[in-house]
């Protein structure tokens, strides 16, 4: 695939894919990092709950996966993965960028917020291991919006190149 001589629409499509991965990836990296720090702290006090803490730490990781997913769908639909990028009009390119925004932006924000809840949930779990189910539920509440963003991103991105 030749990179020079791309159409504007194709460039926009790649920008969209990159945004989906970058923004949600930043959020998840921040989130998992924050949750990991708290997990390590709580585990020094109470090593027995370490397993439960790992689940909580993993929860903010999913946003990055959602972003990756949408990014790859853009790459598939525009033929990048097949090795021959198809024609993309400027309108289509713009629509792809728009489609990538929900999972990118909401992914970023919700991953960070989810990590904060996860961190508090870890403190709760450290003090009262029997409450770990509640802590996980509280954390998953935040994820709802990332899942919705993924859905909408997917529906837009998947319909543009039809």
């Amino acid at each position, binding site marked *: 695939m030749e990179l020079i001589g791309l159409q504007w629409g194709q460039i926009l499509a790649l920008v969209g894919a990159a945004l989906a991965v970058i923004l949600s990836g930043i959020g998840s990296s921040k989130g998992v990092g924050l949750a990991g720090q708290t997990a390590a702290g709580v585990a020094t006090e109470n090593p027995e709950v370490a397993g439960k803490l790992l689940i909580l730490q993993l929860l903010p990781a999913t946003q990055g996966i959602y972003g990756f997913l949408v990014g790859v769908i853009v790459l598939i639909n525009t033929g990048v*993965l097949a090795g021959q990028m198809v024609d993309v009009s400027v309108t289509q390119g713009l629509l792809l960028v728009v489609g990538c925004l929900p999972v990118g932006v909401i992914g970023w924000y919700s991953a960070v917020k989810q990590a904060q809840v996860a961190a508090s949930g870890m403190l709760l779990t450290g003090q009262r291991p029997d409450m770990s189910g509640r802590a996980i539920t509280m954390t998953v509440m935040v994820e709802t919006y990332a899942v919705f963003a993924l*859905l909408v991103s*997917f529906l837009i991105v998947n319909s543009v190149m039809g």
Partner: protein
Amino acid sequence: MAIVEMQRLTLLALKSDRKKLLSALQAMGCVEVTEAPDEVQEYAAQAAPAHHAQHLTDIRWALQKLAKYDTDPKPIFGTFPEIDHERAQDVLARSQDVLGLIRRLEAIERRRGELLADEVRVRAAKDALEPWRGLEVSMRDLTSLKTTDQFLGALPARNLPSVLDALHGQPVTITQVGQDRDRALVHVAAHKSDVEAVRQALSAHDFTRETPADIEDRTPAQAIAAHEARLAQVEAERGALDEETATLAQAIRDMKVLHDLFELEQKQAVAMQRSAETDQAFLLRGWVPKRAGAAVRQQLLNLSPSAMVALQEPQEDENPSVQLQNGPFVGSFEPVVEGFSLPDYRSVDPTALMAPFYATLFGMMLSDAGYGLLMAIAIPIYIKVKKIKMDYSRMLRLLMYGGLATIIWGIAFNTVFGFNPVPQITSWFPFDPVNRPLEVMVLCMGVGVLHLFAGLGMAAYMNIKRGDPLAVLGDQVGWALLLVGLGLMLLPDTQRIGQILALVGAGLILLLTKRGERNPIKRIFGGLGALYGISSWVSDILSYMRLFGMGLATGVIGMVFNQLIGMVWAGGIFAKAVAVVLFVFSHLFNLGINALGAYVHASRLQYIEFFGKFFEDGGKPFRPLDMKTRYVSIQSAKAQ
């Protein structure tokens, strides 16, 4: 299949029989001892259970310190080493020896701390001396002589040549003996007549006097050697301590047994503290499952014929402890309920109704038949091989049933390890989330409505059981009619009937929500407020869209992995080998992360959407006086 019925057990017996009776209760493991009633507060037992608490903490500390020598497998799923009665008695007889070992371990750890402090101090002293190593005299040899003054000091290395220049030809020698970063350490010997001039020249070049610390009459090299000898000594002592710790570690099993014996006694002591007593007799109250009540009573009477044992149904104002009892399938889903909260003793156990929904939702979210098959095969094998007992394998079995449901939904969504092998049978089956998402969205919301209506049905059942038909009409039937009606209104053929149903439903809600209110205006306004609850129904139903989102994530990530691995596969034989390894690991990763997601989101849909319709929480778990311990499983004498 429900919440276990409890009976109030009251035991009045001679104090001389107390030990015997408590041991029997503990071995039976089905009576939870509760606080003595208020009337007998003044007779509260004086027994202090604290005397083992310190030992328990000590032993746990020791076991933590010895953890790396511990060869027993970690009892994640309750596979404890079994200890027979004789062995336990033997350890108990040697308890002072075992505790002595722990005291020795404490001493070792203290000594380790001292050694560490020593090491840090000696190492710092040695490092400070290191630059002076080249000085071949001791401080005593550096005192002033009859005609000569001598001293040590440091100056920036780059100033050394100019200082030598400045003092050239004068009766002074400056010898560099060492280097400390960018400073030169020097020995200065000057004739007394000239000392002042030398000093001035030196200080003009940033010279400061400095001497190696604490070497007394040794040369720096000798002092360093002494420090090194001390460090070696520390190391050797540490090695000896390590060896001794390793020998102490042979007693790990004894420590575990002793810990658990003490813990059992501690449990008895706590139960004893809850009893009331006089000089001769004691009174103990607790909860016992109804089915075990008579047997417990008989056994207690056999042991102590003079005892009085009463069994009563719980009073209205009493709140018995809650224990769930279900068959092997439904029982696997109990951890989900317990993760939220146990139901109130007088409500219903939701597990049986929840179980099939949980498996369904889990399957829709994991939605890859290959992954499901893997779970459904691997988990039972794991349970068999590890010989995990029923009680401890609930979580694993829950995942296994989830795996079974995943196989079905994986086929329905046409996904097997990220491939799409199922041929299109009808225009809609199998579903195609990527190309025909609308059908899947409708399916997800349909499953959601079923789930929510099941919850509504549960609430209706509870209201009927309590003899409150108006509540059923207003809170459940009304809503069901309204929602079904609104749904039918969306379809052109059934619009008319839908309108009627919706209006009847709304009317019921309007009139019956504030059943207790006599003022008709307040009553209607209360109903209007309740009607606003339609928005929460909308958000509840939309929440099931996550089924689609999570399912999509598994399927598409698997597909993407396959595409990427397909590129590797196109290479030669070596590339194919790499591709196989990649395939295994990437799909295991996808399975892991999405099974976790499916588990937590399926739980959430139960807790918030489903339980929100009917669940009454607040049951306190049934914690009987029993033989459950931390490290080992001790067989009682009778069991053998």
